[in-house]
């Protein structure tokens, strides 16, 4: 069996120097492998470290120990040992990440926000814009909003723009942090379709899905996280502050 993403011995603690040097252990010695076409759901109670693990897999957080091996252009690379410019390259073409909230770029319209990662990855601009429009239509963003900057959009609309942005490149590895959290049933179904399409073209997916229906529809297996008493004992507010 081939493996697209392999996290080995990942350990992560936060040390809060501004709050008396409190050390918060989040997870310890995690091993996770994901194959092409497979969707793994991170599962555990709130505050267990699911988002922290997902962000670590994107090199947004830096684990203390371990390796994150990804297949980039057919070669295995360790994301944790990679130089910043290497991470930028790997993110451009190999690993996509859909966060819970859209980071709005001032003055840039929704269509261009969505098309941007595809253009950065070498797709001709007109093709990228056409694909952006197709995704925005599928996610029911009305055409009159496409040229507007998403800063004024509702929470659900911003999330759908964010999803379109995450799915415009056919990333071999895709990380999804609660992609359906504030969506209605019809848009949830569209996101399920997008995830299943990504799987069928061989994408390896790791996600957090609180919605049971969505989880049933996309996840091939659950990966339990948060069994450590130390991590469980951390007040959710402290973790939320660190993770925000």
């Amino acid at each position, binding site marked *: 069996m*081939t*493996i*697209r993403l*392999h996290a*080995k011995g990942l350990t992560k603690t*936060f*040390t*809060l*120097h*501004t709050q008396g040097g409190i050390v918060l252990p989040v997870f310890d010695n995690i091993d996770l492998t994901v194959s092409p076409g497979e969707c793994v759901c991170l599962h555990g109670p709130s505050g267990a470290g699911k988002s922290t693990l997902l*962000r670590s897999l994107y*090199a*947004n*957080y*830096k684990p203390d120990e371990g*390796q994150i*091996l990804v*297949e*980039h252009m057919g*070669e*295995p*690379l*360790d994301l944790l*040992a*990679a*130089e*910043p*410019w*290497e*991470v*930028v*390259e790997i993110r451009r073409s190999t690993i996509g990440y859909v966060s819970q909230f859209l980071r709005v*770029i*001032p*003055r*840039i319209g929704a269509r261009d926000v969505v098309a941007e990662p595809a253009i*950065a990855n070498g797709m001709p601009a007109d093709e990228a814009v056409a694909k952006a429009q197709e995704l925005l239509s599928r996610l029911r963003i009305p055409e009159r909003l496409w040229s507007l900057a998403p800063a004024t959009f509702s929470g659900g609309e911003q999330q759908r723009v964010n999803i379109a942005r995450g799915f415009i490149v056919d990333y071999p590895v895709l990380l999804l942090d609660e992609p359906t959290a504030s969506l209605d049933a019809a848009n949830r179904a569209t996101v399920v379709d997008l995830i299943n399409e990504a799987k069928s073209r061989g994408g390896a997916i790791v996600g957090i899905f609180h919605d049971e229906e969505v989880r049933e529809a996309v996840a091939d297996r659950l990966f339990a996280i948060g069994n450590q008493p130390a991590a469980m004992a951390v007040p959710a507010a402290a973790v939320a502050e660190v993770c925000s």
Partner: protein
Amino acid sequence: MTTNAIRKLTPKPPLLEVSGLCKSYGGQIGCRDVSFAIRPGEVLGIVGESGSGKSTLLACLSGRLAPDAGTISYDMKDRGPVDILTLSEPERRRLARTDWGIVHQNPRDGLRLDVSAGGNIGERPMAIGARHYGNIRAEAQDWLQKVEIDLARTDHRPRTFSGGMQQRLQIARNLVTRPRLVFMDEPTGGLDVSVQARLLDLLRGLVRELGIAVIIVTHDLAVVRLLADRLMVMQRGRVIEQGLTDQVLDDPHHPYTQLLVSSVLQV
């Protein structure tokens, strides 16, 4: 994927390579033992509070200040890597106005206030040999459009421009010769928030479109998040933390970086 032979990507040769840079003012430390490399097309942010040494570092890098120790190697177009500290003054000036750009915090330091907007942009092309008036004017107007300045203002002096317009003109003046490396010192400092957003969006677009490498010094973390791939955090003249921008901002390890990030007010 077999995981027994982990590879590294082949890096592009660095455009600028700095090693062991030190500068002090009498007993006062400016910057101490700074080493890093920047590759073509990379955007590097340098953050830190006032007095952390970031502007001193930028002044040394761009040849405006002589460091006490260290080397600054720049990959010159026709000569390959050269220690810029060994260049003669005319050579350094020529480099600074062709292959480099320097955007000052105060546009009045980077513009000629008594020369028209078009003339400000035309100066660099003329300095490297452009002579055809029509071509120079056309190129200047092309750049005025790129930085969203009304063409009706081509012959006006920048003295009559708003701060935001002056800053955009300064950027056009620097980018017209397609430099490979641009130094920016607080380019959005002193501007209104709405003017800042426009400038940032413009810079972001131009930097990506032209693939220029940028070293940007700022105390505004939102600016580096939007523009920089990589971040160096300075405190008391030293680089105390560096890495991928979003990693340093979202998962800061050094106590000072944590303080810096946690001090930003949420809007």
